[in-house]
């Protein structure tokens, strides 16, 4: 396999709840333009394109077809990848494989979501609606909670069950979720590409209503409009096209289990907080990256956290710390931007969530941190040698992992 590096990142100028001024393909063009501007490349330098989003969030099938001109993919090989929440990283991993395999040298990975054009709550219901209707046909009551069957649970979805199971097994308290939420929102306040950018205290979070215990309103992510483009290249093209300040992809992994919280039709056998795919995927990525002790060797992490408890949970599931340790790291400031394991210095998905981009922004942020090209004030002060990026999707079942580094390894 060949060495592959992220050589540049392009975000839309903002991630906000509503881009009223542009249509979908115009918005995508902004992030592609930014990537070209940031790398000094032109479309002629691009050998192939990988692309993805969540189709039903915009009601648009195979949107790379309409976006062909706007993302400068005319006459290029292109592949569309979509895996739910993990889409962004799955798209970047496809670009990685395209280069690692020797097929192509420079590949552009494009992800986007314009969630204001649809209703994402409704779009998410589309994951399981036929299954739910089958249960309804057998007497399930969708609305009152009477009877047995429905896996969905409270209005924060099955995330509340996951949070409770996490708390139970880790020994963390609900207050730790508040604290993590406040930390990440405050990080987001420093990031010009974050959506919710307000310095936030634990008290602010605790003032929000409890929706489905243990999750509060202030524990949930926003829905955003935005697009992200990453350009990856082979060693040879890194030498040719860049000054060498790039972020190397040294480990990749992905794994699935089953739609654990939605398998009410055929029996749920997986604890939503168990997340064994995180272990499978991360162990593979660490092995590739030559990492034996992730907690000691990694310098930062970007976790996919649609809900505020998840960063803590993932740190444990991905082996960054032992089970039950993450909330202690939080308590001692280890997860702060200046801490030993800065986690979601960007503010995370919890602060910015244009879903297709959410799992691409994680490795993109790691790459920018490594390259010390962070715009805004969330640059981690210490030198970043190895960074962990994580994506999560499907119906609680997919995990993607990437390790990025300042050296090809």
């Amino acid at each position: 396999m060949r060495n592959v590096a992220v050589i540049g990142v392009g975000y839309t100028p903002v991630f906000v709840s509503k881009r009223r001024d542009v249509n979908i393909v115009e918005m995508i063009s902004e992030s592609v333009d930014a990537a070209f501007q940031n790398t000094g490349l032109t479309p002629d330098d691009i050998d192939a394109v990988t692309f993805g989003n969540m189709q039903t969030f915009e009601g648009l099938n195979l949107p790379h077809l309409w976006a062909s001109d706007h993302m400068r993919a005319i006459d290029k090989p292109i592949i569309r990848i979509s895996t739910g929440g993990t889409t962004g990283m799955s798209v970047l991993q496809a670009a990685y494989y395209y280069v690692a395999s020797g097929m192509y040298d420079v590949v552009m990975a494009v992800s986007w979501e314009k969630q204001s054009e649809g209703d994402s709550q409704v779009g998410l219901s589309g994951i399981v609606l036929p299954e739910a209707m089958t249960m309804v046909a057998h007497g399930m009551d969708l609305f009152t909670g009477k009877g047995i069957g429905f896996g969905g649970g409270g209005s924060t979805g099955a995330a509340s069950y996951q949070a409770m199971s996490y708390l139970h097994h880790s020994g963390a308290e609900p207050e730790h979720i508040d604290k993590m939420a406040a930390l990440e929102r405050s990080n987001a306040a420093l990031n010009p590409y974050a959506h919710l950018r307000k310095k936030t205290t634990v008290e602010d979070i605790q003032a929000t209503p409890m929706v489905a215990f243990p999750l509060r309103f202030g524990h949930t992510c926003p829905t955003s409009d935005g697009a992200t483009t990453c350009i990856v290249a082979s060693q040879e093209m890194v030498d040719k096209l860049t000054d060498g300040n790039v972020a190397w992809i040294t480990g990749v992994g992905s794994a699935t289990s089953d739609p654990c919280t939605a398998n009410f039709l055929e029996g749920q056998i997986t604890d939503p907080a168990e997340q064994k795919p995180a272990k499978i995927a991360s162990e593979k990525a660490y092995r590739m990256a030559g990492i034996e002790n992730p907690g000691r060797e990694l310098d930062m992490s970007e976790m996919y956290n649609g809900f505020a408890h998840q960063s803590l949970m993932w740190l444990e599931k991905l082996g960054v710390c032992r089970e039950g340790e993450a909330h202690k790291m939080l308590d001692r400031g280890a997860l702060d931007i200046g801490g030993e394991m800065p986690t979601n210095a960007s503010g995370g998905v919890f602060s910015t969530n244009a879903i297709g981009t959410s799992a691409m922004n994680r490795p993109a942020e790691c790459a920018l941190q490594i390259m010390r090209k962070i715009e805004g004030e969330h640059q981690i002060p210490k030198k970043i040698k190895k960074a962990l990026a994580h994506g999560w999707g499907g119906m609680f079942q997919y995990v993607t992992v990437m390790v990025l580094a300042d050296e090809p390894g």
Partner: protein
Amino acid sequence: MLRKVAIVGQAQMNAADSGMSRERMLFELCKGFYDSMGITRHDIDTFVLCSNDFASGHTISNVFEDCPVGAYMKDETKVEADGVMAATYAMIRIMSGLYDTALVVGNSQGGSVMRPYLVMEYTLNQTYDRQLGLMNELSAAALQARAYMDEFGLTEEQLNKIAARNLRNAALNPFAFNGRADVTPEDVAASDLLYEPLRQLHCYPFTDGACVLLLASEEKAKELTDRPVWIKGVGDSLDTYYPERNAVRSKSVKLAGQRAYKMADVGDPANRIDVAEVSAKFAHQEPIICEGLGLFPEGSGGEVADRGLADLDGAMPICPSGGALGAYAFNAGGLVRLAECHRQLAGDAGDTQVVDARTALAHGQDGFCMQHNAVMIVSVEEG
């Protein structure tokens, strides 16, 4: 030096109505395939699914597809495009050196569950074309057919011959369901007129289908089968969405072919390719694809039809399986073309067998009037 990858096995099913849930269709196909290969799901290093949210009617279509293909607690990803792209990605994953086996599984149920023409309409520019409602898969295909006929003098009778040949071939293929053993060009001419010049029998049938391919690295391929079919070249290309695209001299078909030929070191495709399986969803697309791929000279569609050059025993057999007119399930479509190439090269093609087939070409497409085209060259010659 790129790592060698082979197709070591395949299975497919196509029907107007599978009578099964999507999950059950996938489970039965994959279970049967594993058993036939003498392997289990644990022998698969990475799963590349190929499906579509609108085709399946499910947001994140692979959520309920992982388990029935055997991917529980395994490495998995999903391509949302034609099956040839999924096979390409699986190949690339193996080429990276990180995997030795990859299972590609495509499926959709256009016969029983979803409405293919409606799913295609969701690909339109939602702010313009879909608002006007003039463009749909049939009207767009009809315009493309008319353009080819105007440009190169293909007659309706010749167009009907193309359709009839495919439908007759399909009747010989147990994996196609839309075959018509004795169909004549006159029968095609008598079918319902939709958008001129397109008639019902020029169009792909709505299909429930699934297809599975197992790809493997050189070493693993030789362990798994005595008859590996080597992937020699792949290529794909995207055209513009907008009508400035030349739909009869398809640049993306041409570029896809050129890329695949270059990788496979094929200088003279018309001579080197023994059989081609192309995804012509409408009869007139077959000459456009074949000509873009250099299998026949530009504009020769009429002559090819008259002289039977694309017949089973012709100079360049095209779609001995009956092609997309015999069965065409979204996402599985391109994989079925590859599976048919595998049957040909493995000598398993029964009544549709092309004599001495050693190198084959599979083509897949996405979008209105073939906006995105993908090609894979496969061969029994290891090289």
